């Protein structure tokens, strides 16, 4: 049993390391920012990086832990962003700002989770790649619907219309909140880097603790062998649905952060490419490797932005970095090399003691 306790600590230790690395990263960036070392351009990237880290970690729960492929996480991001923004626009000035933003985050998460749940019910009963197909279609449908979606508010309450804003029939003094393809403008800018980092920590806390629990074990058992999992009494649909709903909820929360960070919110941003971008972060960071997702997101999101000055060479360098990261996280030689380095670091640590 002594050996066992040791390894229990190993998992906790590994998770703790992830938290600590993230906290150190936060402190460094925060002090650079206070010291005026960060350009305006980099400051603008801080909240989006947090948003994409949450998305990548949440998607890794589906792809890496649950073993299903989702190509529509941009759709949940979009719905969370819209839900939270609409709420904030309506209640702006009625509720104190911090409480309103907190509620907006919760609403974003709830909207994401609700749609994840509704899609998951029929699809996750099936075996195979159906989830990838359905989520892909879902993302497209959401985009097309929201493109022609209008919401207005006046003293009679909410008005909803499709296609034509005049059909809202608002009374005088009414306000159009969602303007079809033009999206939502003027959402209060509540998001900042500190809140972003707090949400990243919350996401990590939920995902890492879930993985290292009875539920997470069941989810991974289903991923490894569905028939065997059923044979020992694990409910397959329930656990897959749980993983997918939690993932969609976390992405919805990230969406709320998104819509409270920008002055304009349009659906055009939440297309297929965004879903694939998040998937690239997950795959290159290592499928099932949560810490890897964070590192890959930071490198692959910030790099192209920093390289903007190089213009045409930008995508060339981006491609090379993609290949290098892929080799580093997947090639057998690189894995052995990494382990050797880790061993050496550990031994050195012992020598110092």
């Amino acid at each position: 049993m002594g050996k066992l306790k040791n390894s229990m600590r190993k998992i906790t230790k590994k998770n703790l390391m992830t938290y600590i690395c993230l906290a150190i990263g936060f402190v460094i960036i925060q002090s650079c920012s206070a010291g005026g070392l960060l350009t305006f351009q980099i400051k603008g990237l801080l909240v989006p990086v947090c948003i994409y880290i949450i998305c990548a970690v949440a998607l890794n729960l589906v792809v890496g832990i649950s073993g299903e492929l989702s190509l529509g996480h941009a759709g949940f991001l979009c719905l969370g962003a819209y839900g939270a923004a609409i709420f904030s626009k309506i209640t702006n000035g009625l509720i104190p700002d911090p409480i309103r933003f907190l509620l907006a985050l919760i609403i974003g998460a709830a909207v994401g989770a609700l749609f994840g749940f509704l899609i998951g019910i029929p699809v996750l009963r099936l075996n195979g790649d159906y989830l990838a197909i359905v989520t892909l279609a879902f993302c497209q449908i959401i985009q097309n619907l929201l493109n022609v979606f209008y919401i207005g508010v006046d003293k009679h309450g909410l008005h909803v219309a499709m296609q034509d804003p005049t059909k809202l029939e608002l009374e005088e003094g009414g306000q159009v909140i969602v303007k079809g393809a033009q999206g939502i403008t003027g959402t209060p800018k509540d998001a900042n880097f500190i809140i972003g980092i707090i949400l990243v920590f919350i996401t990590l806390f939920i995902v890492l603790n879930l993985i290292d629990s009875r539920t997470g074990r069941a989810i991974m058992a289903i991923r490894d062998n569905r028939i065997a999992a059923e044979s020992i009494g694990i409910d397959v649909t329930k656990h897959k649905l749980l993983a997918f709903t939690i993932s969609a909820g976390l992405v919805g929360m990230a969406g709320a952060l998104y819509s409270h960070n920008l002055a304009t919110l349009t659906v055009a941003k939440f297309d297929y490419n965004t879903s694939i971008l998040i998937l690239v972060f997950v795959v290159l960071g290592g499928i099932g490797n949560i810490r890897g997702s964070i590192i890959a997101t930071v490198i692959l999101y910030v790099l192209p932005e920093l390289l903007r000055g190089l213009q045409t060479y930008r995508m060339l360098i981006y491609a090379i970095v993609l290949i290098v990261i892929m080799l580093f996280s997947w090639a057998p030689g690189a894995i052995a090399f990494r382990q050797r380095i880790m061993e050496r670091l550990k031994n050195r640590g012992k020598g110092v003691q």
Partner: protein
Amino acid sequence: MAMLEVKHLSVSFGGLKAVDDFNMTIEGGELYGLIGPNGAGKTTIFNLLTGVYKPTEGSIFLDGKNITGMKTTAINKAGIARTFQNIRLFRQLSVLDNVKAGLHNRYAYSTLSGIFRTGRYREMEKAMDEEAMRLLKVFDLDSYAEYQADNLPYGQQRELEIARALATRPKLLLLDEPAAGMNPNETKALMETIRFVRDEFHMTILLIEHDMKLVSGICEKLTVLNFGHVLTAGLTEEVLNDPEVVKAYLGEE
């Protein structure tokens, strides 16, 4: 009351009748063997008993309860656990976690308890660790607890499957060719383990096996299956000396 009672069980795949009018009664605590040539339908019967296939006709009673047509998950909760002919472990999980997955329904706590690390989480996880280690010890696997299941040698992967099935504390344990791919020494050790499991856990065991030494060594009763039909059933010694059985296995003179 019999532990397992199978009455007039049949299943067809398209035009092929894979199992036809299969009957079998196993009393509590028996070590029962299901034998027959390749393609006789033995594994199909396991799949019918565990709800992987739905029978076209007939009924299955476990300890007096009708489990015909129930889902695999529900059948396991009712008290049947199994191993597989082609090993199906949770390959990326540790040896310990494979057994702990088997304890899933016996040490329950909610997902929220797991996320927020409540007292119940710690209490249940500790109990699971202890019970899983006890089970691993039965198979001398306790020193491999932290290995990834994939990295175990073949024979020990089979034993781990049995440990995982036992973790659900079934009334009836189905073993599908437990000795396949084992050398004579390993088979001998396995025989002792199976007998030990039956006595220690007061388990009823039904096994499919080709190794006649193992079958005649530990099974008290046998049912012989040929082309989906029951050829004969009864005490091991009588069945193995039955000229019909010899004919099915070795062909006519």
